[in-house]
């Protein structure tokens, strides 16, 4: 009976099924099939034999990975970089959204907002070109200014210690303008009567921002934070690949899981281990997002992601 009803409604919905088909097939091929490919992590992968033909090796890929000592370092870097990106980014996004909202000149606002938006539109390749133009040792603008002031030239590409700050700066530079739009939209949605009433009661601008605007932004901030937190073990490959790449002098301060996995894949020397590292990363991400979501669901169900 039930099967019959299923087929009848499905036949009635045949066009809906047809419209769903491409995306469903896409997701099966590009998301679910690779999931079955995680068996590579437990195999000595041989390209000729293929995924399912290669020999099982149990956990030896993982043993190798965990023994190499690099894993903890990579995981910590990935996590800390992402946390820095999230917090610094959010601070400036919210800050600029609040400031821009209070500015009175419409023309100024529009012009400068579009300036702030610009870096979002370019690829990391172009960012890397710009960074070289500004910071390169021989011809970089910064070094030009320093030496014309009589200072000593800085070779940033050979000195790893400032790069954690630089990477946070570049990443923020690229995303702040765009990210602030979300908060700006939330601010424009705040009931103006709240501000008027507060003003009548004698609240100054700073007080109104603190007691009206900021609290109204909190839900959006939490949602954005959670969305980012779910990806906290997934590094920004483009940023790190284009700006750090294979520069052995910088890698000690700026190596992340994604770079490591890519290098292992590119050298094709040890696909099994690269795959094990990838699985480790995926599982970390999954656990993080499930945990975060479960906690939020308990405390404040409205903010949970799913």
């Amino acid at each position: 009976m039930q099967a019959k009803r299923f087929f009848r409604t499905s036949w009635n919905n045949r066009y809906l099924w047809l419209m769903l088909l491409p995306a469903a097939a896409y997701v099966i091929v590009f998301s679910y099939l690779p999931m079955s490919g995680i068996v590579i992590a437990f195999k000595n992968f041989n390209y000729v034999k293929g995924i399912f033909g290669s020999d099982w090796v149990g956990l030896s890929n993982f043993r190798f990975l965990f023994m190499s000592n690099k894993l903890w370092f990579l995981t910590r870097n990935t996590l800390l970089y992402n946390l820095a990106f999230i917090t610094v980014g959010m601070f400036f996004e919210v800050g600029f959204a609040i400031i821009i909202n209070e500015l009175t000149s419409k023309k100024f606002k529009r012009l400068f907002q579009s300036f702030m938006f610009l870096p979002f539109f370019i690829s990391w390749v172009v960012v890397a070109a710009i960074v070289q133009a500004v910071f390169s040792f021989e011809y970089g603008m910064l070094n030009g200014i320093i030496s014309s002031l009589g200072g000593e030239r800085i070779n940033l590409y050979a000195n790893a210690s400032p790069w954690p700050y630089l990477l946070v700066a570049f990443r923020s530079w690229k995303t702040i303008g765009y990210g602030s739009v979300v908060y700006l939209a939330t601010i424009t949605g705040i009931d103006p009567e709240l501000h008027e009433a507060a003003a009548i009661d004698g609240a100054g601008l700073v007080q109104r921002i603190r007691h009206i605007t900021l609290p109204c932004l909190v839900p959006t901030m939490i949602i954005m934070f959670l969305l980012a937190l779910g990806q906290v073990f997934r590094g920004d490959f483009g940023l790190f690949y284009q700006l750090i790449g294979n520069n052995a002098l910088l890698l000690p301060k700026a190596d992340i899981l994604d770079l490591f996995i890519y290098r292992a894949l590119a050298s094709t020397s040890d696909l099994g281990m690269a795959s094990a590292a990838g699985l480790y990363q995926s599982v970390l991400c999954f656990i993080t997002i499930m945990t975060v979501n479960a906690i939020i669901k308990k405390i404040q169900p409205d903010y949970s992601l799913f």
Partner: protein
Amino acid sequence: MVSNNKIIQRDKLVFCAIGYTLVTLYGLLCVLPFVLVFITSFTSEASLMKNGYTFFIKEFSTEAYALAFRNPQRILWAYRNTVGATIIGTALAVLMATMTGYVLQRRDFPQRNGFSLFFFFTTLFNGGLVPTYILCTRYLGFKNNYIALVLPLMFSVWNMIIAKNFIKSVPYEITESAKVDGANDMVIFFRLILPLCKPLLATLGLFSALAYWNDWYNTLLYITREEKMSLQYFLQEMINSVQALKNLVAMGVSVDSVRVSLPQETMKMAMTVITTGPIILLYPFVQRYFVKGLTIGAVKG
């Protein structure tokens, strides 16, 4: 009361003064690097070698562009590939996101929740780079195939969710009454629903087009033949080969002859202008759609 008002006025004044300053400074920080790239691309190499990168142009020259176009084959290939992938890919990506989003918000489609989870789960867990790479190269024939420039960016669950949430705001009665009139779901979607979703189409189209235009990652993974590379990858390769040449010089290898004959630094900037130009030119016209895009369809599963 009067004094209180004065304080409030002063507060506002101070805040605005600080606000305008900060926004001005940051805005300039965002736009000046582009100006620097543009200006230096029109400098002679000799002048750049002497003065370094600077906003103050000393010798105007178009030699970098002349050189870039003296042997334009690779630029043209890269342009062709990226423009092609952007047009085809964007059209398919928008179609897939809206079509799927429409089905998943139909109340009379009993499997909608199951499928929503089916799609959403892929954002929570994935197989990782290596299995995907092996699948695509060994089984799907991505290596040096144009499909590698189109397929990987063709469907995004986030875009689908945006589409689903946006289409939800279109009155359900439209679908209902059309069904009563005997129209099939495909006709309803293309003839009735899509025309009401222009802001959605614009937003998704722009997001996808930007992703395709700026893509170098898939070339990095799958393409080794010069005639099939994307524009951004080509730019990256050029920047890196200039860098590699420099490293050779630093190591003491004599490549002086190459060095003199190639305007490396200005050429790098000229190539950056050539590859990024179209986006920057389109930018003023499309910007507002991006702002809209962020505010339509809250991102929630």
